[in-house]
């Protein structure tokens, strides 16, 4: 299908701890993103979702991590093998990145205008007037009022939500085909979160941009995205349209969904997932969810790795027993 924009296949990401010690942080992760799709990537801390994003925007090596094997096909280019020069034409131009709001933000010692100008002129030369016009256009696009004033301000003068809008403006400055948003609203207020989500949806609608939205909040992802990809202990284990999340084909997805507190009466019995997620470097062999799964059988622990396979035209699952448990594809 030519509708595919990017395809990550069986990727494994390692991180160097010492000269000899390597740690696997992502293993057997695959996902496909269509043009104009809003894809939610969900996982708990340590599931490798942030590393997968870094692989997509080519910033893995800054933390001593690298792609061990697998490929990322983006419009016919393998991003894993892309050179620094290739990346210069991809990063920002074709793939935009919105960082985690709590950790990163606009450079605190640069005016908003200067940072936008940097994002706008990337690689090409543009006149001052052109840059200014485009900056204002972008700020209006992310619904910042009085853009002329904001251009002259420093980040500390803006609220958290405003800063994140500026980051979004930077990310879309070159009309990228794909935007990777890594927990863009973590730490922001719920009302601001709702506004930012609305904004991302509008951008997608207006420019037909594909967006990967990363979060640990299933409720949020479910309400915003078309498709959900679930990561657990470094692997992608489920892909399901958000409309069919109750018919998911992996016990982990069900467990996550069922543990939502808005499904029960106040102080009612919650269906929690028992135990702790396996920590990086201590993944069990076989299905890495086996220890916490209600349906576990010996075969789950002996099949390694559990293949991530397409079950029907919209759903993928890494549970080898999904047919037994959920009665096959519906």
């Amino acid at each position, binding site marked *: 299908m030519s509708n595919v924009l990017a395809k990550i296949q069986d990727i494994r990401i390692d991180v160097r*701890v010492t000269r000899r010690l390597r740690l696997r942080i992502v293993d057997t992760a695959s996902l496909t993103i269509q043009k104009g799709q809003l894809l939610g990537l969900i996982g708990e801390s340590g599931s490798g979702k942030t590393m997968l994003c870094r692989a997509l925007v080519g910033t893995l090596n800054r933390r001593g991590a690298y792609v061990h094997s697998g490929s990322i096909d983006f419009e016919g280019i393998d991003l894993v093998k892309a050179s620094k020069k290739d990346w210069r034409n991809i990063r920002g131009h074709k793939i935009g990145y919105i960082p985690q709001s709590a950790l990163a933000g606009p450079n605190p010692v640069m005016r908003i205008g200067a940072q936008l100008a940097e994002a706008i002129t990337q690689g090409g030369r543009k006149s001052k007037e052109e840059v200014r016009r485009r900056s204002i256009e972008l700020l209006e696009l992310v619904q910042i009022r009085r853009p002329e004033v904001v251009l002259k301000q420093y980040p500390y003068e803006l609220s958290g939500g405003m800063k994140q809008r500026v980051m979004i403006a930077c990310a879309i400055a070159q009309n990228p085909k794909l935007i990777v948003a890594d927990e863009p609203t973590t730490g922001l207020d719920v009302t601001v979160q709702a506004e930012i989500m609305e904004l991302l949806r509008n951008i997608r609608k207006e420019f037909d941009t594909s967006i990967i939205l990363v979060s640990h909040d299933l409720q949020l992802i479910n309400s915003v995205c078309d498709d959900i990809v679930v990561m657990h202990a470094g692997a992608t284990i489920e892909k399901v349209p958000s409309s069919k999340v109750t018919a998911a084909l992996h016990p982990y997805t069900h467990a996550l969904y069922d543990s939502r507190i808005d499904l029960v009466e106040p102080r009612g019995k919650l269906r929690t997932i028992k135990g702790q997620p396996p920590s990086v470097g201590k993944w069990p062999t076989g299905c890495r969810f086996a220890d916490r799964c209600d349906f576990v059988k010996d075969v789950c622990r002996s099949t390694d790795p559990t293949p991530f396979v397409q079950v029907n035209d919209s759903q993928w699952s890494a549970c080898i027993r999904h047919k037994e448990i959920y009665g096959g594809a519906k």
Partner: protein
Amino acid sequence: MIRRIREYAALPGGFGIICGISMFLTITILGFARPLFIPYAPDELVGDGLAGPSWQHPFGLDQLGRDMLSRTLAAVPADIGVAFLGVSIPLFIGTLIGILLAFAKNKVFLSLVGSIIDGINAFPLLIIAIAMVTFLGPGLFNVVIILALMNWARYARIARTRAQIVLRENYVEAARLMGYPRRRIIFKHVTPNVSSETLAYALSDFILVIVIISGLSFLGLGARPPAAEWGSMIADGRVFLGEAWWITVFPGLALCWSAVSISLIVEGLSRRDRAS
């Protein structure tokens, strides 16, 4: 045992830490155990002055005919021992004062001690030490006193800043909510989290203090002859550098060896810290 060391060495920075510790232990043990395996006393005249290295005297003899190997090792208690005192006393005093400052509320007291600390820290330690020696007179014992009197200020500043942060941490607030007595909070909850920081500084300070001790001795303000001390040995040998390099080179190497061993430990520890 060997397996555990291997495992430790595989951790981030572990290799450097193990190298540093073994280098440091080597020179310290050799230094303190010297009388057991070297037949010559450090101030015994055993041959002609300025005799070069030989099988009998691997480090050669100095201008008076004393065995250089014996002297170099005999200087270990003077240099490393005095440096140990010169670091641990200020470490203890400074950490305690710093923590008390973080707790203190009296503004007059705070600004008084604060300006003393800043005043002392305004000068390089070596300059203060030289100035103080002119009051107290030369000698290793006086060097220890000077370090105890002056070096605590650096530790106090680090400890105060760190303690102020720790006091705002939730676990200290939780301890206060528990109604623990103040002394328990200071010693069980605040001090361990402050001393980890000052201890780290003490390690790198150790190198500086060894250099200060030998520097003062080099200037004739530290160890008094005929005591063996690296700095004064280097000073003695300077005149004969052309004809008898061994008088300066071996004490110098010993000095380097100790400094490098500790900086290997410091580097290893900080690498381990960064990795976690």
